[in-house]
């Protein structure tokens, strides 16, 4: 059970949710799938006086805009996994969503909730960062959009202001030839290490340095400088080994239940190498 009583607000429009949030300030917590929030409420880590349920505000659903795939913030992992627009334009995200936690979490948990909770051991941030996705926020002063790295400030800390609500995540449509892939190693249900690679291949070689992002190891996703891969084939062992070593050196892990710091550094190196190799075998667009 949850130890503290709370008032539940279920606004049916975004403007009402924004107004409630502005009125209640830090007494209110935003709620969607609850897969993260209810765990901490049950543990008594936080007490909440007001919960604002965002699931009736019309923030779900996925659409293709002129230049992006736009995923509403209360869209569940399972909806993303099964969505034909995501499958056509961002297949790496379909695959990622299919492997978040377990089917019960995927049925209830939302992409917006996953990002806003900012638990470092999460799958989406690394891939979304590699794909240059943006987070759309709405507040009394209007709307703004941030990159994933601007949004995720630290463990359990984001740039979301106390009067703002996340409305969507947008992923720019990839250029022809761009491929992306995400792999993880999970000791428990959450990833211990996740690596995302996105890059454009021309004649079997990277046209430019790919985006390489390591997730779940540090408090925030870590972008790895991958210039050594520009012009190289994903099967170029020396270039890939140099990238993997750079990834290992870029992370700053701590010992925790998902592994020791040394182990996570080792996994980062191995998984980076494997993820680049897999990219060569992956299909078509990002």
């Amino acid at each position, binding site marked *: *059970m949850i130890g503290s009583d709370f*008032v539940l607000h279920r606004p049916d429009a975004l403007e009402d949710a924004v107004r409630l949030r502005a009125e209640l300030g830090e007494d209110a917590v935003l709620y969607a799938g*609850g897969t993260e929030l209810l765990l901490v409420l049950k543990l008594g880590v936080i007490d909440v006086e007001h*919960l604002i349920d965002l699931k009736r505000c019309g923030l779900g659903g996925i659409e293709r805009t002129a230049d992006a795939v736009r995923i509403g913030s209360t869209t569940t992992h399972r909806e993303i996994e099964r969505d034909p627009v995501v499958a056509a334009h961002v297949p790496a995200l379909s695959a990622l969503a299919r492997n978040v936690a377990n*089917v*019960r*979490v995927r*049925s209830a948990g939302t992409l917006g909730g996953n990002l806003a909770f900012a638990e470092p051991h999460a799958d989406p941030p690394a891939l979304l960062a590699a794909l240059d996705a943006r987070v759309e926020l709405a507040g009394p002063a209007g709307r703004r959009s941030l990159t994933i790295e601007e949004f995720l400030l630290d463990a359990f800390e984001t740039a979301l202001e106390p009067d703002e609500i996340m409305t969507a995540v947008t992923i720019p449509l990839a250029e022809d030839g761009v491929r992306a892939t995400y792999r993880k190693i999970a000791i428990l*249900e959450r990833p211990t290490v996740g690596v995302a690679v996105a890059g454009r291949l021309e004649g079997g070689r990277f046209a430019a340095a790919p985006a390489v992002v390591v997730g779940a190891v540090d408090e925030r996703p870590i972008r790895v400088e991958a210039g050594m891969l520009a012009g190289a084939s994903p099967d170029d062992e020396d270039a890939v080994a140099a990238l993997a070593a750079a990834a290992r050196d870029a992370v700053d892990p701590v010992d925790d239940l998902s592994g020791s710091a040394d182990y996570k550094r080792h996994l980062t190196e191995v998984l980076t190498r494997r993820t680049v190799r897999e990219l060569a075998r992956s299909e078509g667009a990002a």
Partner: protein
Amino acid sequence: MSTETSTTITTRINGREQSLRVDNADLLLDVLRDMGLRGAKASCEMEVCGACTVQLDGLPVSACTTLAVELDGRSVETIEHLDAGGEMHPVQEAFLRHSALQCGFCTPGMVMSVKALLEVDPDPSREDVVHWLEGSICRCTGYATIIDAALDAAEAMRGV
């Protein structure tokens, strides 16, 4: 602005429409068990093990980490409803045929999870079943017979 810490909801529980008043802080699992629906178990209480699995609008959820108020306007089905017509559900029959249970603690969750799978994918591969059941833990480690039972139930339900 509301100041109430409880909510009146309209829901369908195991096929029966009803209105009830729940505390906002009530968890679905506690409400179900207080009604005598005790097939779903509290076990890990962190969405990892699957022992509390029920179907909410057809999809499997962890009742231990779902607010009871989420039932509002929705339908929930628990293991107790499966033989309500006097006959066991094909998934239950398949579990029996394959002896897909040992201590039985995880069984209600396993059966509900398999039933949910077959409702969205009537013809899953063995790999699909394994993937769906990741996060459904049998500490007796009887996974092979559970997977066999799921595939057999799928065939039975397709009339193969």
